[in-house]
């Protein structure tokens, strides 16, 4: 990839950074939501622990776990909605006609947004979790969590990109996203570590990208991680490659449908 090409896609990231820094309302909303949800679940896990239920054996670790999963989910830009809107309005016709890869441009723009959101939400999660638990996981765990969480948010963005591309056929991708979100809740272990789920759920989850996106990186803040960093890195390579292939395949089908049959 030449410098000119890199600069081209960096420009898409840059304009997203500019946009995110000017339109701060949504970011503040996410920060507030993050703080509230951590406060609510912190109280819940403490109440469950006081009631003597085994699930919240270590309520502090569970709050840190939730802070990690929510950090990933809230940092990932809802690119599927942007793509859907551009397709509905017809503005996508401009982007398709430009001398730039539509997929790379959209992904680069999302990474720009991610670059603004992730630090602020990361600090929010850290401060809130610290305030609600009064403890901090080992620094080594946090050092492993941060790069994997950022990778997970980027992979999640790429998967949202594939959902957004379905708008070429569906116009409204909300139903697909809802199904995705519910699967992520369960098979990704959004609220609770996947190790606490029934055996069959864990077995099903292993065939999906959800553990790589959420429970894998977040489990590093637990006393015992569900996966080693090396295994998680390998899984990232596998799922990133698969996602890249899926996104390209959907886009090729979409543009073929568009160029052959209009839209």
């Amino acid at each position, binding site marked *: 990839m030449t410098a*000119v090409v890199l*600069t*081209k896609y*960096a*420009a*898409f990231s*840059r*304009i997203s950074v*500019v*946009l995110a820094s*000017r*339109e701060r309302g949504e970011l503040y909303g996410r920060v507030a939501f993050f703080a509230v949800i951590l406060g609510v679940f912190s109280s819940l896990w403490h109440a469950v622990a006081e009631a003597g239920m085994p699930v919240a054996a270590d309520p502090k670790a569970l709050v840190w776990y939730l802070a990690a999963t929510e950090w990933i989910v809230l940092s990932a830009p809802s690119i599927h909605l942007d793509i859907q809107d551009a397709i509905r*309005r*017809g*503005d996508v*016709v*401009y*982007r*398709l*006609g*430009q*001398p*730039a890869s539509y997929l790379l441009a959209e992904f680069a723009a999302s990474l720009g947004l991610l670059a603004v959101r992730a630090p602020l939400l990361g600090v929010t999660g850290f401060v809130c979790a610290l305030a609600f638990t009064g403890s901090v996981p080992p620094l080594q765990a946090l050092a492993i969590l941060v790069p994997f969480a950022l990778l997970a948010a980027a992979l999640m963005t790429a998967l949202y990109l594939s959902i957004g591309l379905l708008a070429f056929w569906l116009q409204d991708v909300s139903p697909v996203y809802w199904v995705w979100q519910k699967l992520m809740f369960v098979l990704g272990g959004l609220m609770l570590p996947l190790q606490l789920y029934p055996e069959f759920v864990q077995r099903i989850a292993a065939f999906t990208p959800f553990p790589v996106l959420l429970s894998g990186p977040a489990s590093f803040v637990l006393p015992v991680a569900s996966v080693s960093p090396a295994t998680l890195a390998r899984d990232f390579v596998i799922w990133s490659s698969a996602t890249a292939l899926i996104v390209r395949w959907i886009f090729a089908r979409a543009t073929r449908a*568009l*160029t*052959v*049959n*209009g839209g």
Partner: protein
Amino acid sequence: MQPAVELHQVSKSFRVRRARRAGVGACIRDLFTRQMDTVLAVDQLSFSIAPGERVAFIGPNGAGKSTTLKMLAGILQPDSGDVRVLGLVPSRQRRQLAFQIGTVFGQRSQLWYQLPPRDTFELLGRVYEIDQREHRRRIEALLAVFELGKLIDTPVRHLSLGERMRCEIVASLLHSPRMLFLDEPTIGLDVSAKAMIRELLRTESERERVTLLLTSHDTGDMERVCRRVIVIHRGQLLWNGSITALRRGYLKTKRVTLWSEADHLELRLPGVRVLSSGAYRTELEVAVEITPLGQVVDAAVRQAAIRDMAIEDAPLDEVIRDLYANAERRSATS
């Protein structure tokens, strides 16, 4: 000289879902069955455009204008026939072509809505791989021509439609395209904004020898920007020639307004229709092939002294309407 645009026997059809039937039962059946129809949008269309020409491309709704424009921009692939733009085949060489053409779709936007146009312009500079210094010079030059001034730093959402359209055109001209496709660039604009856009398009095209192909339903766009008009109907070529020739070829009537000493004039001549009469003013529509204008004036002078007189062509709108109506009649009989 190689034409800027060349279409030869180009056809394009779409498969569209058949309209839903009425009734609950039909709705449920429609969920499980999908009946498709084939619509021929462009039917063996051929024309060419020389470099630097400004051509209006018109037709009624659904005539195939936007489809043709999208095929020329490489966004749609023709079913058959040859398309060449600046010597390139758009559907196969879209990326190469993208550096040489600009597109303006009146009802779409390439500007980032929440940001000032300057941010989009800078992004486009990178997308089109323009040298930074050259790009800044180009922006400044276009800002002056299009009188954007402070607008370039105003978020797009705060711009009026006319201001936004000027910015859209500038965005399409940043990479100095040799060919500009415009799909209804004046749609929804007020009279003065339309006039400004037309003037800018004409002068920019002349100054930089940019070839223009413009679709519009507004005859003012054609008359003030273009010299040649291509009319299509149901995907087929209906007219390809100068606007003057279109007027001459299809205009069989003249509008005559007479201001006379008499309150009204009684002109009963073959081919002469009185449109309005009274208050010392009479407006006539004269079929000049049946009754020459001289005879009409003579007849009027015999009735009363004529204080003033105006002779005009019928509006181009009417010519176009007649053209469409004739085509519709022909296709109905065939």
